[in-house]
């Protein structure tokens, strides 16, 4: 079975841990997030008949990505960058953050995800999409579960390519 390291990152309060908890049962409590700034868990999925274990590192949110210890990103095959659809401040630095992450993790697959879809209207979504400096890959709701599984399965498929 293939194992891949996936990082969940983005500003604080965007819903990373909620997405994480929605997707998998969490063995370690959330206190690790506040003590060492990261929590690791595993989810095994099957994509096109192939099994992949996603080792997901849920990293505590920082306003700027370069505040997060770089060693957490080392060896990552995939990165899920999450922003909050209801807070523009969480996607204003999108280009700078993505450039930084691409430099740090050369070759890693990066998915840009807008969370809290359940809190915005379709009109808002169109407006936000036009405002985004980079195109998003998926819009999710950790609360309702919309597109959460799709996100991780899409990423898993890309990592197995």
């Amino acid at each position, binding site marked *: 079975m293939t*194992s891949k390291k996936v990082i969940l990152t983005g500003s604080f309060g965007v819903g990373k841990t909620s997405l994480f908890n929605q997707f998998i049962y969490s063995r370690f409590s959330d206190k690790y997030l506040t003590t060492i700034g990261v929590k*690791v868990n595993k989810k095994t999925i099957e994509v096109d008949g192939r099994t992949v274990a996603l080792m997901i*590192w849920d990293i505590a949110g920082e306003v700027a990505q370069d505040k997060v210890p770089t060693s957490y990103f080392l060896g990552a095959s995939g990165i899920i960058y999450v922003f909050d659809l209801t807070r523009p401040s969480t996607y204003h630095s999108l280009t700078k953050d993505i450039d930084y992450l691409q430099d740090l993790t050369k070759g890693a697959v990066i998915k840009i995800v807008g969370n809290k879809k359940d809190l915005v209207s379709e009109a808002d979504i169109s407006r936000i999409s036009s405002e985004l400096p980079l195109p998003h890959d998926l819009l999710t709701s950790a609360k309702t579960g919309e597109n959460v599984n799709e996100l991780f399965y899409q990423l898993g498929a890309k990592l197995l390519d």
Partner: protein
Amino acid sequence: MKRKDTTGSEQEKMQQLQEILLGKERAKLDRLETIVETKEDLSERVSPIIEEHLEQLRQQFPEHYRRVVDRMMEEKIKSSSEDILNTLYPVLGKMIKKYIAHQFQLLREAIDQQIRRTIQRLNFWQRFKVMVWGIGDTDLLLVESKAPQILEVFVIQRDSGLLLGNASAQKTVDSDVVAGMLTAIKAFVEDAFMDGSQDLGMIEYDHHKIYLQNFPAFFIAIALSGVISELEKGRLNDHLLDFAEQEITNKLVIPSEAGFTHISQQLENRFIGQESQLLH
């Protein structure tokens, strides 16, 4: 008819003329053709020339090609520096340990000799006092303690935290997740307190310890219960270095199913239930 006969006779004359003029050349040509097409004949003629050129090349090779070879070796070493480091690290670690242990042994013997000389100079009453109350601060305390037991061994890819192999005395935890969390804790401590210049060596909690032996591309974490002396720790470390040198090749530092099976099997054979051999 006469015209035809004349043409035929002219042709015959031409042929005869050609044979007279070109007969020798034709014969030479036939001979050459035979030589070229017969492997043995050709080889007999060409081989000495090739041998001579090869010999010249052998003699002149260093002079003409030294710089090219040096440059190629330099590029190869640069591109393979990680592989070279992975191969040398366990060997260097053992060499350094042996040297330090040897120096300590010499120092200890020198101290012992000095103490003996000192005691010999004491009178009877002074010797009695030393025997009863000991010598200064060098008291040794032997404590009855629980014998050490190896609970789990993990081989973990250094940067990603992905598990390369694992063996356990009691299967209770998800090894992949523990490997990831150990890597995260290690990264946090090294980043927060060591400025990235040193490696975390041990995590201690109550009577349990997790020793971390670090290598360039991976680290080995060994979880123990019980009390372990410095001497036993040194012996365990030697076994870990041996294991890394003998079992973890450059190919196996990239996670794979076959690699995982091999490393896990070797960990099981060498470490689980082997405390008496490893520590004494």
